[in-house]
Protein backbone atom coordinates (compact mmCIF):
# COMPACT_ATOMS: atom_id res chain seq x y z
CA UNK A 1 0.00 0.00 0.00
CA UNK A 2 2.20 2.92 -1.21
CA UNK A 3 -0.45 5.50 -0.31
CA UNK A 4 -0.33 4.41 3.32
CA UNK A 5 3.45 4.52 3.10
CA UNK A 6 3.28 8.15 1.92
CA UNK A 7 1.06 9.23 4.78
CA UNK A 8 3.25 7.31 7.19
CA UNK A 9 6.37 8.99 5.80
CA UNK A 10 4.68 12.38 5.87
CA UNK A 11 3.48 11.82 9.45
CA UNK A 12 6.95 10.88 10.59
CA UNK A 13 8.51 13.75 8.70
CA UNK A 14 6.16 16.37 10.10
CA UNK A 15 6.86 15.02 13.60
CA UNK A 16 10.57 15.46 12.93
CA UNK A 17 9.93 18.99 11.60
CA UNK A 18 7.94 19.88 14.71
CA UNK A 19 10.71 18.52 16.94
CA UNK A 20 13.33 20.52 15.07
CA UNK A 21 11.31 23.73 15.31
CA UNK A 22 10.65 23.16 19.04
CA UNK A 23 14.35 22.45 19.57
CA UNK A 24 15.35 25.64 17.75
CA UNK A 25 12.79 27.73 19.66
CA UNK A 26 14.09 26.33 22.96
CA UNK A 27 17.68 27.07 21.95
CA UNK A 28 16.81 30.65 20.95
CA UNK A 29 14.94 31.23 24.22
CA UNK A 30 17.99 30.00 26.13
CA UNK A 31 20.21 32.21 23.98
CA UNK A 32 17.99 35.20 24.69
CA UNK A 33 18.16 34.47 28.46
CA UNK A 34 21.95 34.26 28.36
CA UNK A 35 22.11 37.53 26.46
CA UNK A 36 19.70 39.24 28.84
CA UNK A 37 21.82 38.09 31.77
CA UNK A 38 24.94 39.43 30.11
CA UNK A 39 23.30 42.80 29.49
CA UNK A 40 21.99 42.95 33.07
CA UNK A 41 25.41 42.10 34.43
CA UNK A 42 27.00 44.79 32.29
CA UNK A 43 24.44 47.32 33.49
CA UNK A 44 25.18 46.33 37.10
CA UNK A 45 28.89 46.70 36.49
CA UNK A 46 28.31 50.16 35.02
CA UNK A 47 26.15 51.18 37.99
CA UNK A 48 28.76 49.87 40.47
CA UNK A 49 31.38 51.70 38.44
CA UNK A 50 29.49 54.97 38.81
CA UNK A 51 29.10 54.40 42.58
CA UNK A 52 32.72 53.51 43.19
CA UNK A 53 33.82 56.42 41.00
CA UNK A 54 31.80 58.78 43.19
CA UNK A 55 33.04 57.20 46.43
CA UNK A 56 36.63 57.32 45.24
CA UNK A 57 36.25 60.97 44.19
CA UNK A 58 34.62 61.95 47.50
CA UNK A 59 37.20 60.12 49.61
CA UNK A 60 40.00 61.65 47.52
CA UNK A 61 38.76 65.20 48.05
CA UNK A 62 38.31 64.46 51.76
CA UNK A 63 42.02 63.68 52.02
CA UNK A 64 42.90 66.73 49.92
CA UNK A 65 40.80 68.97 52.21
CA UNK A 66 42.57 67.86 55.37
CA UNK A 67 45.97 68.09 53.61
CA UNK A 68 45.09 71.61 52.38
CA UNK A 69 44.26 72.57 55.97
CA UNK A 70 47.60 71.14 57.17
CA UNK A 71 49.60 72.89 54.45
CA UNK A 72 47.99 76.24 55.29
CA UNK A 73 48.64 75.73 59.04
CA UNK A 74 52.31 74.82 58.40
CA UNK A 75 52.85 77.86 56.21
CA UNK A 76 51.46 80.07 58.97
CA UNK A 77 53.46 78.37 61.72
CA UNK A 78 56.70 78.76 59.74
CA UNK A 79 56.23 82.24 58.34
CA UNK A 80 53.85 83.81 60.86
CA UNK A 81 52.16 85.61 57.99
CA UNK A 82 48.33 85.71 58.34
CA UNK A 83 48.22 85.49 54.53
CA UNK A 84 48.98 81.74 54.83
CA UNK A 85 45.94 81.14 57.00
CA UNK A 86 43.48 82.23 54.37
CA UNK A 87 42.88 78.75 52.82
CA UNK A 88 42.61 77.25 56.33
CA UNK A 89 39.45 79.04 57.26
CA UNK A 90 36.34 76.99 56.52
CA UNK A 91 38.29 73.75 55.85
CA UNK A 92 36.86 72.13 58.95
CA UNK A 93 33.30 72.80 57.84
CA UNK A 94 34.15 71.71 54.28
CA UNK A 95 35.62 68.47 55.62
CA UNK A 96 32.54 67.77 57.73
CA UNK A 97 30.35 68.40 54.70
CA UNK A 98 32.39 66.09 52.47
CA UNK A 99 32.44 63.41 55.16
CA UNK A 100 28.67 63.58 55.45
CA UNK A 101 28.35 63.22 51.65
CA UNK A 102 30.74 60.27 51.64
CA UNK A 103 28.83 58.66 54.48
CA UNK A 104 25.58 59.03 52.60
CA UNK A 105 27.23 57.52 49.51
CA UNK A 106 28.70 54.57 51.41
CA UNK A 107 25.41 53.95 53.21
CA UNK A 108 23.71 53.49 49.85
CA UNK A 109 26.31 51.09 48.55
CA UNK A 110 25.77 47.36 48.76
CA UNK A 111 28.18 45.48 51.02
CA UNK A 112 29.86 48.66 52.25
CA UNK A 113 28.00 49.03 55.60
CA UNK A 114 31.14 47.83 57.35
CA UNK A 115 32.86 51.04 56.34
CA UNK A 116 30.32 53.31 58.10
CA UNK A 117 32.18 52.50 61.34
CA UNK A 118 35.44 53.43 59.65
CA UNK A 119 33.90 56.77 58.69
CA UNK A 120 32.79 57.29 62.35
CA UNK A 121 36.39 56.69 63.25
CA UNK A 122 37.50 59.16 60.59
CA UNK A 123 35.12 61.74 62.07
CA UNK A 124 36.65 61.32 65.53
CA UNK A 125 40.17 61.43 64.19
CA UNK A 126 39.46 64.48 62.04
CA UNK A 127 37.91 66.35 65.01
CA UNK A 128 41.05 65.68 66.94
CA UNK A 129 43.20 66.65 64.00
CA UNK A 130 41.38 69.93 63.41
CA UNK A 131 41.42 70.67 67.19
CA UNK A 132 45.20 70.26 67.22
CA UNK A 133 45.53 72.43 64.12
CA UNK A 134 43.47 75.15 65.84
CA UNK A 135 45.54 74.86 69.06
CA UNK A 136 48.88 75.05 67.25
CA UNK A 137 47.66 78.11 65.35
CA UNK A 138 46.62 79.66 68.69
CA UNK A 139 50.13 79.02 70.20
CA UNK A 140 51.69 80.61 67.12
CA UNK A 141 49.36 83.61 67.54
CA UNK A 142 50.68 83.96 71.08
CA UNK A 143 54.22 83.50 69.80
CA UNK A 144 54.75 80.65 72.26
CA UNK A 145 57.01 78.68 69.92
CA UNK A 146 58.15 76.00 72.43
CA UNK A 147 54.55 75.20 73.38
CA UNK A 148 53.69 75.10 69.70
CA UNK A 149 56.56 72.71 68.88
CA UNK A 150 55.65 70.56 71.86
CA UNK A 151 52.08 70.39 70.63
CA UNK A 152 53.24 69.36 67.14
CA UNK A 153 55.67 66.75 68.47
CA UNK A 154 53.54 65.21 71.20
CA UNK A 155 49.94 66.25 70.41
CA UNK A 156 49.22 63.05 68.41
CA UNK A 157 48.39 64.96 65.25
CA UNK A 158 50.46 62.68 63.04
CA UNK A 159 48.81 59.57 64.53
CA UNK A 160 45.37 61.05 63.85
CA UNK A 161 46.33 61.91 60.27
CA UNK A 162 47.77 58.42 59.68
CA UNK A 163 44.59 56.92 61.11
CA UNK A 164 42.47 58.92 58.66
CA UNK A 165 44.69 57.80 55.78
CA UNK A 166 44.48 54.14 56.81
CA UNK A 167 40.71 54.24 57.05
CA UNK A 168 40.18 56.14 53.80
CA UNK A 169 42.69 53.98 51.91
CA UNK A 170 40.98 50.83 53.16
CA UNK A 171 37.67 52.18 51.85
CA UNK A 172 39.28 53.06 48.52
CA UNK A 173 40.85 49.61 48.24
CA UNK A 174 37.46 48.02 48.89
CA UNK A 175 35.84 50.17 46.22
CA UNK A 176 38.51 49.40 43.66
CA UNK A 177 38.21 45.69 44.35
CA UNK A 178 34.45 45.92 44.03
CA UNK A 179 34.73 47.64 40.68
CA UNK A 180 37.25 45.11 39.42
CA UNK A 181 35.02 42.21 40.46
CA UNK A 182 31.93 43.66 38.78
CA UNK A 183 33.77 44.18 35.50
CA UNK A 184 35.37 40.73 35.68
CA UNK A 185 31.90 39.18 36.11
CA UNK A 186 30.50 41.18 33.21
CA UNK A 187 33.43 40.23 31.02
CA UNK A 188 33.09 36.55 31.87
CA UNK A 189 29.36 36.64 31.11
CA UNK A 190 30.09 38.41 27.84
CA UNK A 191 32.51 35.71 26.90
CA UNK A 192 29.97 33.03 27.81
CA UNK A 193 27.30 34.82 25.77
CA UNK A 194 29.58 35.02 22.75
CA UNK A 195 30.27 31.29 23.07
CA UNK A 196 26.54 30.53 23.45
CA UNK A 197 25.68 32.62 20.37
CA UNK A 198 28.39 30.87 18.39
CA UNK A 199 27.01 27.50 19.48
CA UNK A 200 23.51 28.64 18.55
CA UNK A 201 24.71 29.64 15.09
CA UNK A 202 26.38 26.27 14.53
CA UNK A 203 23.33 24.35 15.79
CA UNK A 204 20.99 26.41 13.58
CA UNK A 205 23.20 25.76 10.57
CA UNK A 206 23.33 22.01 11.25
CA UNK A 207 19.57 21.91 11.84
CA UNK A 208 18.92 23.69 8.55
CA UNK A 209 21.08 21.13 6.74
CA UNK A 210 19.18 18.27 8.39
CA UNK A 211 15.81 19.86 7.55
CA UNK A 212 16.91 20.38 3.94
CA UNK A 213 17.93 16.73 3.66
CA UNK A 214 14.60 15.68 5.12
CA UNK A 215 12.67 17.84 2.67
CA UNK A 216 14.64 16.36 -0.21
CA UNK A 217 13.96 12.83 1.04
CA UNK A 218 10.25 13.54 1.45
CA UNK A 219 9.96 15.00 -2.04
CA UNK A 220 11.78 12.00 -3.49
CA UNK A 221 9.57 9.56 -1.57
CA UNK A 222 6.48 11.41 -2.77
CA UNK A 223 7.51 11.44 -6.39
CA UNK A 224 8.44 7.77 -6.19
CA UNK A 225 5.01 6.99 -4.78
CA UNK A 226 3.36 9.03 -7.52
CA UNK A 227 5.40 7.20 -10.12
CA UNK A 228 4.37 3.85 -8.61
CA UNK A 229 0.72 4.93 -8.70
CA UNK A 230 1.00 5.97 -12.34
CA UNK A 231 2.69 2.70 -13.15
CA UNK A 232 -0.08 0.76 -11.45
CA UNK A 233 -2.77 2.68 -13.37
CA UNK A 234 -0.92 1.94 -16.62
CA UNK A 235 -0.67 -1.73 -15.71
CA UNK A 236 -4.38 -1.89 -14.87
CA UNK A 237 -5.18 -0.30 -18.22
CA UNK A 238 -2.90 -2.75 -20.00
CA UNK A 239 -4.59 -5.63 -18.15
CA UNK A 240 -8.00 -4.37 -19.21
CA UNK A 241 -6.91 -4.04 -22.84
CA UNK A 242 -5.35 -7.48 -22.69
CA UNK A 243 -8.58 -9.02 -21.32
CA UNK A 244 -10.63 -7.23 -23.97
CA UNK A 245 -8.23 -8.39 -26.68
CA UNK A 246 -8.36 -11.94 -25.40
CA UNK A 247 -12.15 -11.88 -25.63
CA UNK A 248 -12.01 -10.53 -29.18
CA UNK A 249 -9.52 -13.17 -30.26
CA UNK A 250 -11.67 -15.96 -28.79
CA UNK A 251 -14.70 -14.54 -30.57
CA UNK A 252 -12.76 -14.25 -33.81
CA UNK A 253 -11.73 -17.89 -33.58
CA UNK A 254 -15.34 -18.86 -33.00
CA UNK A 255 -16.43 -16.84 -36.07
CA UNK A 256 -13.69 -18.44 -38.21
CA UNK A 257 -14.77 -21.88 -37.01
CA UNK A 258 -18.34 -21.13 -37.99
CA UNK A 259 -17.22 -19.81 -41.41
CA UNK A 260 -15.43 -23.11 -41.91
CA UNK A 261 -18.33 -25.28 -40.80
CA UNK A 262 -21.15 -23.31 -42.45
CA UNK A 263 -19.25 -22.96 -45.75
CA UNK A 264 -18.29 -26.63 -45.65
CA UNK A 265 -21.92 -27.47 -45.07
CA UNK A 266 -23.03 -25.42 -48.14
CA UNK A 267 -20.38 -26.56 -50.64
CA UNK A 268 -20.09 -30.04 -52.13
CA UNK A 269 -16.78 -29.43 -53.93
CA UNK A 270 -13.91 -29.35 -51.43
CA UNK A 271 -11.82 -26.99 -53.62
CA UNK A 272 -14.69 -24.55 -53.90
CA UNK A 273 -15.32 -24.82 -50.18
CA UNK A 274 -11.66 -24.12 -49.42
CA UNK A 275 -11.63 -21.10 -51.75
CA UNK A 276 -14.75 -19.61 -50.19
CA UNK A 277 -13.51 -20.21 -46.67
CA UNK A 278 -10.22 -18.49 -47.57
CA UNK A 279 -12.03 -15.51 -49.13
CA UNK A 280 -14.36 -15.11 -46.18
CA UNK A 281 -11.59 -15.37 -43.60
CA UNK A 282 -9.58 -12.85 -45.64
CA UNK A 283 -12.55 -10.46 -45.69
CA UNK A 284 -12.82 -10.89 -41.92
CA UNK A 285 -9.09 -10.17 -41.54
CA UNK A 286 -9.25 -7.06 -43.73
CA UNK A 287 -12.29 -5.69 -41.90
CA UNK A 288 -10.57 -6.41 -38.61
CA UNK A 289 -7.29 -4.73 -39.60
CA UNK A 290 -9.25 -1.66 -40.72
CA UNK A 291 -11.03 -1.19 -37.41
CA UNK A 292 -7.83 -1.99 -35.54
CA UNK A 293 -9.84 -4.23 -33.27
CA UNK A 294 -10.91 -1.18 -31.28
CA UNK A 295 -14.23 -0.97 -29.53
CA UNK A 296 -15.37 2.44 -30.69
CA UNK A 297 -18.36 4.28 -32.05
CA UNK A 298 -16.19 5.49 -34.94
CA UNK A 299 -14.19 2.37 -35.73
CA UNK A 300 -13.87 2.62 -39.54
CA UNK A 301 -14.99 4.77 -42.46
CA UNK A 302 -17.55 3.13 -44.75
CA UNK A 303 -15.62 4.15 -47.87
CA UNK A 304 -12.41 2.58 -46.52
CA UNK A 305 -14.22 -0.65 -45.70
CA UNK A 306 -15.80 -0.83 -49.19
CA UNK A 307 -12.40 -0.26 -50.82
CA UNK A 308 -10.58 -2.73 -48.61
CA UNK A 309 -13.04 -5.56 -49.14
CA UNK A 310 -13.79 -5.30 -52.87
CA UNK A 311 -10.32 -4.28 -54.12
CA UNK A 312 -8.98 -7.88 -54.41
CA UNK A 313 -11.95 -8.86 -56.62
CA UNK A 314 -12.00 -5.93 -59.08
CA UNK A 315 -10.84 -7.27 -62.48
CA UNK A 316 -7.92 -5.51 -64.17
CA UNK A 317 -9.00 -2.40 -66.07
CA UNK A 318 -12.40 -2.13 -64.37
CA UNK A 319 -13.48 0.86 -62.36
CA UNK A 320 -15.97 0.94 -59.52
CA UNK A 321 -17.95 4.15 -59.07
CA UNK A 322 -17.94 5.04 -55.37
CA UNK A 323 -19.87 8.02 -54.00
CA UNK A 324 -21.18 9.22 -50.70
CA UNK A 325 -20.45 11.41 -47.68
CA UNK A 326 -18.12 10.51 -44.85
CA UNK A 327 -19.90 7.89 -42.73
CA UNK A 328 -18.27 6.16 -39.78
CA UNK A 329 -19.18 2.63 -38.74
CA UNK A 330 -19.27 1.52 -35.13
CA UNK A 331 -17.04 -1.42 -34.23
CA UNK A 332 -19.86 -3.99 -34.09
CA UNK A 333 -20.84 -3.21 -37.71
CA UNK A 334 -17.43 -3.43 -39.36
CA UNK A 335 -17.20 -7.24 -39.51
CA UNK A 336 -20.75 -8.05 -40.72
CA UNK A 337 -20.71 -5.25 -43.33
CA UNK A 338 -17.31 -6.52 -44.47
CA UNK A 339 -18.71 -10.04 -44.88
CA UNK A 340 -21.76 -8.74 -46.81
CA UNK A 341 -19.52 -6.76 -49.19
CA UNK A 342 -17.35 -9.87 -49.61
CA UNK A 343 -20.34 -12.01 -50.61
CA UNK A 344 -21.59 -9.36 -53.04
CA UNK A 345 -18.13 -8.99 -54.59
CA UNK A 346 -17.57 -12.74 -55.07
CA UNK A 347 -21.01 -13.08 -56.64
CA UNK A 348 -20.33 -10.11 -58.95
CA UNK A 349 -17.13 -11.81 -60.10
CA UNK A 350 -18.78 -15.15 -60.67
CA UNK A 351 -22.24 -14.28 -61.98
CA UNK A 352 -22.69 -10.48 -62.08
CA UNK A 353 -21.14 -7.29 -63.38
CA UNK A 354 -17.56 -8.57 -63.48
CA UNK A 355 -18.51 -11.87 -65.11
CA UNK A 356 -19.60 -9.94 -68.22
CA UNK A 357 -17.16 -7.86 -70.32
CA UNK A 358 -19.36 -4.71 -70.24
CA UNK A 359 -20.84 -4.92 -66.76
CA UNK A 360 -20.45 -2.00 -64.35
CA UNK A 361 -20.68 -1.61 -60.61
CA UNK A 362 -21.63 1.53 -58.68
CA UNK A 363 -21.62 1.69 -54.88
CA UNK A 364 -23.18 4.71 -53.20
CA UNK A 365 -24.19 5.61 -49.68
CA UNK A 366 -26.05 8.47 -48.00
CA UNK A 367 -27.62 9.46 -44.70
CA UNK A 368 -31.19 8.23 -44.75
CA UNK A 369 -33.42 11.27 -44.25
CA UNK A 370 -36.62 9.23 -44.42
CA UNK A 371 -35.67 6.82 -41.66
CA UNK A 372 -34.69 9.08 -38.84
CA UNK A 373 -37.91 8.88 -36.88
CA UNK A 374 -37.76 10.18 -33.30
CA UNK A 375 -34.00 10.57 -33.47
CA UNK A 376 -34.49 13.47 -35.83
CA UNK A 377 -35.50 15.60 -32.85
CA UNK A 378 -31.96 15.28 -31.58
CA UNK A 379 -30.57 16.02 -35.02
CA UNK A 380 -29.33 12.45 -35.25
CA UNK A 381 -28.28 11.70 -38.79
CA UNK A 382 -26.81 8.29 -38.14
CA UNK A 383 -29.40 6.26 -40.11
CA UNK A 384 -27.93 5.61 -43.53
CA UNK A 385 -28.28 3.46 -46.66
CA UNK A 386 -25.81 1.70 -48.90
CA UNK A 387 -26.69 0.80 -52.49
CA UNK A 388 -24.87 -1.81 -54.55
CA UNK A 389 -25.85 -1.38 -58.20
CA UNK A 390 -24.73 -3.78 -60.93
CA UNK A 391 -25.56 -3.17 -64.59
CA UNK A 392 -25.07 -5.96 -67.10
CA UNK A 393 -26.00 -5.03 -70.69
CA UNK A 394 -27.70 -8.01 -72.26
CA UNK A 395 -28.57 -9.60 -68.93
CA UNK A 396 -26.57 -11.49 -66.32
CA UNK A 397 -25.82 -15.13 -65.89
CA UNK A 398 -28.31 -17.22 -63.98
CA UNK A 399 -27.36 -17.27 -60.32
CA UNK A 400 -27.79 -20.60 -58.56
CA UNK A 401 -26.05 -19.30 -55.44
CA UNK A 402 -28.32 -16.36 -54.93
CA UNK A 403 -30.89 -18.39 -53.14
CA UNK A 404 -28.19 -20.40 -51.36
CA UNK A 405 -25.87 -19.96 -48.49
CA UNK A 406 -24.34 -16.64 -49.71
CA UNK A 407 -27.75 -15.04 -49.51
CA UNK A 408 -28.37 -16.51 -46.10
CA UNK A 409 -25.03 -15.14 -44.93
CA UNK A 410 -25.86 -11.66 -46.26
CA UNK A 411 -29.22 -11.68 -44.50
CA UNK A 412 -27.78 -12.86 -41.17
CA UNK A 413 -24.92 -10.37 -41.31
CA UNK A 414 -27.41 -7.60 -42.11
CA UNK A 415 -29.37 -8.47 -38.98
CA UNK A 416 -26.17 -8.37 -36.99
CA UNK A 417 -25.30 -4.97 -38.50
CA UNK A 418 -28.81 -3.74 -37.68
CA UNK A 419 -29.74 -3.28 -41.32
CA UNK A 420 -32.53 -4.34 -43.64
CA UNK A 421 -31.79 -5.85 -47.08
CA UNK A 422 -33.70 -5.29 -50.34
CA UNK A 423 -32.73 -7.13 -53.49
CA UNK A 424 -33.97 -6.35 -56.99
CA UNK A 425 -33.08 -7.18 -60.56
CA UNK A 426 -32.87 -4.13 -62.78
CA UNK A 427 -31.75 -4.21 -66.42
CA UNK A 428 -30.34 -7.65 -65.87
CA UNK A 429 -28.19 -6.48 -63.00
CA UNK A 430 -28.43 -6.98 -59.24
CA UNK A 431 -29.49 -4.02 -57.14
CA UNK A 432 -29.06 -4.36 -53.38
CA UNK A 433 -30.04 -1.69 -50.83
CA UNK A 434 -28.94 -1.97 -47.20
CA UNK A 435 -30.82 0.32 -44.82
CA UNK A 436 -28.94 0.85 -41.56
CA UNK A 437 -30.71 1.86 -38.36
CA UNK A 438 -29.43 4.95 -36.59
CA UNK A 439 -27.20 4.24 -33.63
CA UNK A 440 -29.20 5.10 -30.58
CA UNK A 441 -27.09 7.49 -28.51
CA UNK A 442 -27.72 5.44 -25.37
CA UNK A 443 -25.82 2.51 -26.77
CA UNK A 444 -22.06 2.73 -26.86
Amino acid at each position, binding site marked *: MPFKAITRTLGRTSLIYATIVAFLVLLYVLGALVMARAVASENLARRIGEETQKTLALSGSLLITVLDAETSQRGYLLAGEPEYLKPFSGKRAEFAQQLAALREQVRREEGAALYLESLDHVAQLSTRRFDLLDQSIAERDRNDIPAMLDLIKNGGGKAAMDGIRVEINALRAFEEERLAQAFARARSLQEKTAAALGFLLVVTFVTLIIAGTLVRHTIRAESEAQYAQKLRAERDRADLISREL*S*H*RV*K*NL*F*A*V*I*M*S*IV*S*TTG*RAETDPREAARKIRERVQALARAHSLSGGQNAQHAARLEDLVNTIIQPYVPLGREVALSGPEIWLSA*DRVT*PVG*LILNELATNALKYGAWASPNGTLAISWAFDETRQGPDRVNGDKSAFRLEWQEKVPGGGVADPERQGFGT*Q*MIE*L*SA*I*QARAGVEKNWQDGGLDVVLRFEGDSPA*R*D
Partner: protein
Amino acid sequence: MSKVNGKRILVVEDEALLALDLRFALEDLGASVVGPCYRLATALSTAELGGIDAAVLDVDLAGETVFPVADLLRKADVPFVFHTGRLNPQTLAEIYQDAPVCPKPTDPETVARTLFALLEKRQATH
Protein backbone atom coordinates in the same frame (compact mmCIF):
# COMPACT_ATOMS: atom_id res chain seq x y z
CA MET B 1 -31.03 -38.70 -28.95
CA SER B 2 -34.66 -39.57 -29.42
CA LYS B 3 -35.53 -37.77 -26.22
CA VAL B 4 -34.38 -34.43 -27.60
CA ASN B 5 -36.19 -34.84 -30.89
CA GLY B 6 -38.33 -31.82 -31.62
CA LYS B 7 -37.23 -29.92 -28.52
CA ARG B 8 -37.44 -26.15 -28.91
CA ILE B 9 -34.08 -24.52 -28.28
CA LEU B 10 -33.66 -20.73 -27.90
CA VAL B 11 -30.37 -19.47 -29.41
CA VAL B 12 -29.11 -16.07 -28.21
CA GLU B 13 -25.92 -15.04 -30.02
CA ASP B 14 -24.93 -11.64 -31.44
CA GLU B 15 -22.48 -13.06 -33.98
CA ALA B 16 -24.63 -13.99 -37.00
CA LEU B 17 -22.39 -16.74 -38.38
CA LEU B 18 -21.99 -18.36 -35.00
CA ALA B 19 -25.74 -18.29 -34.54
CA LEU B 20 -26.20 -19.91 -37.94
CA ASP B 21 -23.62 -22.55 -37.15
CA LEU B 22 -25.29 -23.31 -33.82
CA ARG B 23 -28.64 -23.57 -35.54
CA PHE B 24 -27.29 -26.06 -38.06
CA ALA B 25 -25.70 -28.13 -35.33
CA LEU B 26 -28.87 -28.17 -33.20
CA GLU B 27 -31.08 -28.98 -36.17
CA ASP B 28 -28.72 -31.78 -37.22
CA LEU B 29 -29.35 -33.36 -33.84
CA GLY B 30 -33.11 -33.18 -34.26
CA ALA B 31 -33.98 -30.05 -32.31
CA SER B 32 -35.89 -27.05 -33.62
CA VAL B 33 -34.38 -23.62 -33.11
CA VAL B 34 -36.15 -20.58 -31.72
CA GLY B 35 -34.40 -17.40 -32.90
CA PRO B 36 -31.56 -16.88 -33.23
CA CYS B 37 -31.87 -13.67 -31.18
CA TYR B 38 -29.08 -11.14 -31.71
CA ARG B 39 -30.05 -8.54 -29.11
CA LEU B 40 -31.05 -8.61 -25.44
CA ALA B 41 -34.45 -6.99 -26.10
CA THR B 42 -35.54 -9.61 -28.69
CA ALA B 43 -34.12 -12.43 -26.59
CA LEU B 44 -36.11 -11.23 -23.55
CA SER B 45 -39.40 -10.91 -25.44
CA THR B 46 -38.87 -14.32 -27.08
CA ALA B 47 -38.12 -15.96 -23.72
CA GLU B 48 -41.20 -14.32 -22.19
CA LEU B 49 -43.40 -15.95 -24.84
CA GLY B 50 -42.42 -19.33 -23.37
CA GLY B 51 -42.64 -22.68 -25.11
CA ILE B 52 -38.90 -23.13 -24.81
CA ASP B 53 -37.31 -26.40 -23.61
CA ALA B 54 -33.70 -25.19 -23.35
CA ALA B 55 -31.38 -22.35 -24.44
CA VAL B 56 -27.85 -21.51 -25.61
CA LEU B 57 -26.83 -18.06 -24.30
CA ASP B 58 -23.96 -15.87 -25.41
CA VAL B 59 -23.10 -13.60 -22.46
CA ASP B 60 -22.01 -10.43 -24.26
CA LEU B 61 -24.69 -9.05 -26.63
CA ALA B 62 -23.38 -5.95 -28.43
CA GLY B 63 -22.50 -4.23 -25.17
CA GLU B 64 -25.28 -5.73 -23.04
CA THR B 65 -25.21 -8.89 -20.94
CA VAL B 66 -27.62 -11.79 -21.29
CA PHE B 67 -28.20 -12.17 -17.53
CA PRO B 68 -31.83 -10.86 -17.50
CA VAL B 69 -32.69 -13.69 -19.96
CA ALA B 70 -30.78 -16.21 -17.83
CA ASP B 71 -32.68 -15.09 -14.71
CA LEU B 72 -36.01 -15.34 -16.52
CA LEU B 73 -35.22 -18.89 -17.76
CA ARG B 74 -34.03 -19.99 -14.34
CA LYS B 75 -37.29 -18.77 -12.83
CA ALA B 76 -39.22 -20.73 -15.50
CA ASP B 77 -37.03 -23.78 -14.75
CA VAL B 78 -35.71 -23.88 -18.33
CA PRO B 79 -32.14 -25.33 -18.53
CA PHE B 80 -29.48 -23.45 -20.51
CA VAL B 81 -25.77 -23.41 -21.33
CA PHE B 82 -23.54 -20.35 -21.63
CA HIS B 83 -21.46 -19.98 -24.77
CA THR B 84 -19.02 -17.14 -24.15
CA GLY B 85 -15.51 -15.76 -24.59
CA ARG B 86 -16.02 -13.06 -22.03
CA LEU B 87 -16.09 -13.98 -18.39
CA ASN B 88 -13.98 -16.20 -16.28
CA PRO B 89 -16.06 -19.44 -16.50
CA GLN B 90 -15.52 -20.02 -12.77
CA THR B 91 -17.32 -16.80 -11.84
CA LEU B 92 -20.18 -17.58 -14.17
CA ALA B 93 -20.53 -21.10 -12.73
CA GLU B 94 -20.70 -19.65 -9.23
CA ILE B 95 -23.68 -17.44 -10.09
CA TYR B 96 -25.54 -19.96 -12.28
CA GLN B 97 -24.60 -23.26 -10.70
CA ASP B 98 -26.77 -25.47 -12.91
CA ALA B 99 -25.61 -23.91 -16.19
CA PRO B 100 -22.61 -25.47 -17.97
CA VAL B 101 -20.21 -23.02 -19.61
CA CYS B 102 -18.80 -23.60 -23.13
CA PRO B 103 -15.91 -21.17 -23.55
CA LYS B 104 -15.52 -19.75 -27.06
CA PRO B 105 -14.31 -21.15 -29.33
CA THR B 106 -16.16 -24.43 -28.75
CA ASP B 107 -17.46 -26.20 -31.84
CA PRO B 108 -21.27 -26.00 -32.12
CA GLU B 109 -21.73 -29.78 -31.99
CA THR B 110 -20.13 -29.85 -28.55
CA VAL B 111 -22.34 -26.97 -27.40
CA ALA B 112 -25.41 -28.83 -28.70
CA ARG B 113 -24.36 -32.09 -27.06
CA THR B 114 -23.69 -30.34 -23.74
CA LEU B 115 -27.19 -28.88 -23.84
CA PHE B 116 -28.79 -32.21 -24.73
CA ALA B 117 -26.91 -33.97 -21.96
CA LEU B 118 -28.34 -31.42 -19.57
CA LEU B 119 -31.86 -32.00 -20.93
CA GLU B 120 -31.58 -35.79 -20.62
CA LYS B 121 -30.28 -35.52 -17.07
CA ARG B 122 -33.28 -33.40 -16.13
CA GLN B 123 -35.73 -35.76 -17.84
CA ALA B 124 -34.21 -38.67 -15.92
CA THR B 125 -34.64 -36.93 -12.56
CA HIS B 126 -38.13 -35.51 -13.22
